[in-house]
């Protein structure tokens, strides 16, 4: 029987890690991930979890350890946030192009300066081009479910890519929620054993991994990585369908909420989808055709599917908890814009980009209500006057 539990997002991730049973867990504590790293350490110390826990001296080391362990044939995991992710940056594309199926929890936290320990998506959104699969989680249940699925996606022998599973710092990582946990045995059977393609420890079958490739071969390695990441979109859905069978919970590339006949849509990532859903329900009662698209898989970007889901809307706002300073818009906004350019659909919505919730600023019903009101004004005027704005910045 599934177990009903009251856990924080960090607890939920730690519980998933206990059930996933990585051979190696190498992490350095950083707010707001600290509780997660502590809890996994506690499991190991208590003898509940048979994992080699390596308390590294930095995040650069934690990812280095994970790469080495993974290439040796171990299931390797880690967790970090904010500057911790920034500090392991050098290793992110390395992990991915070495095709090491490392799975990492990223507890989204703002980048300095000014120093801030609360939620922005600066860290993982900044790492979007590192060649990892990225999954985003609205709440503790989704973190738990995504993390288990992430291991299966990463270790699939046709994919072999690292996966980053993200949740909002404090808002989700530290808030207690009700969620359903699977039985240990079910998770074990779902994941099976990790079988490396090549192991550095196979002395009778020696291999070199991570050697130099000059201009004559570098392109082919990158093309191979790029194709694997694109291909993983189908695998992510396949794993989601398999997971639905054991958990009863269905996941897709993104969640469409009241989107089929919607005129006004918000695209959002992670926890703020909750408040947006509530506003959609309220507006629907008032006769406003509001809808929501919540990103779950951001890399690989499900461009064609998102275009299909949004093309018949009148006006869409892409809300993001990070800015791409000096860019055309924030990451998801520019991706969706490019997706429409690529798809060349006749129908496409007017689209605006609002930055919200930086450094943990609360986003409430009023804020989201204001966005849907703006979208209706834009529709009435038939044009966009200001396509990019900081939603909550005081003048």
């Amino acid at each position, binding site marked *: 029987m599934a177990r009903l539990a009251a856990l924080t997002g960090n607890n939920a991730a730690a519980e998933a890690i206990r059930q996933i049973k990585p051979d190696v867990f190498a992490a350095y504590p950083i707010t707001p991930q600290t509780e997660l790293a502590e809890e996994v350490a506690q499991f190991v110390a208590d003898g509940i979890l048979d994992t080699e826990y390596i308390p590294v001296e930095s995040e650069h080391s934690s990812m280095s350890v994970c790469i080495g362990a993974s290439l040796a044939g171990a299931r390797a995991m880690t967790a970090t946030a904010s500057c911790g992710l920034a500090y392991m940056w050098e290793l992110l594309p390395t992990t991915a192009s070495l095709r090491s199926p490392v799975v990492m929890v990223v507890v989204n936290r703002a980048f300095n300066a000014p120093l801030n320990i609360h939620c922005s998506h600066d860290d993982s959104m900044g790492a979007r081009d590192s060649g990892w699969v990225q999954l985003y989680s609205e709440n503790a249940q989704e973190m738990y479910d995504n993390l288990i699925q992430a291991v299966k996606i990463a270790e699939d022998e046709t994919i072999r890519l690292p996966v980053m599973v993200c949740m909002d710092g404090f808002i989700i990582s530290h808030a207690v929620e009700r969620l359903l946990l699977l039985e240990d045995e079910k998770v074990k059977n779902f994941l099976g054993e990790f079988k490396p393609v090549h192991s550095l420890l196979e002395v009778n079958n020696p291999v070199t991994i*991570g050697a130099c490739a000059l201009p*004559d*071969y570098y392109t082919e*390695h990158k093309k191979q990585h790029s194709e694997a990441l694109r291909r993983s979109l189908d695998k992510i859905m396949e794993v989601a369908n398999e997971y639905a069978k054991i958990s009863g919970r269905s996941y897709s590339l993104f969640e469409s909420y009241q989107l089929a006949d919607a005129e006004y849509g918000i695209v959002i990532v992670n926890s703020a989808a909750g408040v947006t859903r509530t506003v959609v329900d309220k507006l629907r009662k008032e006769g406003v055709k509001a809808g929501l698209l919540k990103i779950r898989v951001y890399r690989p970007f499900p461009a064609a599917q998102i275009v299909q889901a949004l093309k018949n809307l009148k006006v869409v706002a892409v809300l993001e908890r990070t800015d791409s300073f000096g860019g055309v818009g924030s990451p998801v906004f520019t991706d969706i814009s490019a997706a429409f350019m690529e798809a060349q659909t006749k129908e496409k919505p007017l689209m605006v980009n609002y930055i919200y919730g930086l450094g943990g600023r609360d986003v409430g019903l009023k804020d989201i209500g204001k966005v849907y009101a703006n979208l209706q004004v834009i529709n009435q005027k038939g044009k966009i006057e200001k396509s990019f704005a900081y939603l909550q910045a005081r003048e």
Partner: protein
Amino acid sequence: MRKLQGWKDIPIGTAIIEAGSSVKYLTGEWRNARPEHNKDKCTNCLLCWIYCPDGAIIVEDSQVTGINYDYCKGCGICAAECPPKVKAITMVKNQN
């Protein structure tokens, strides 16, 4: 010219799955000047053999018999190290 493999044919994750495969990598392609060895002038002091960073000086029975152009990168160290009174190795620039 060696045949270059396509992205579908190379092992995943940058792996080199065959031990000692670097012998197949003919670095002589990099050369823009070739050393030419004059057997008549050579005193077989073997300084070129000692200094060659690529092991490209062919020696048989203590005699320099030629240069392995598969691996010689054309660095010119052999020509520079050959004693000035001997000058048995001269560098010849590639035509194109």
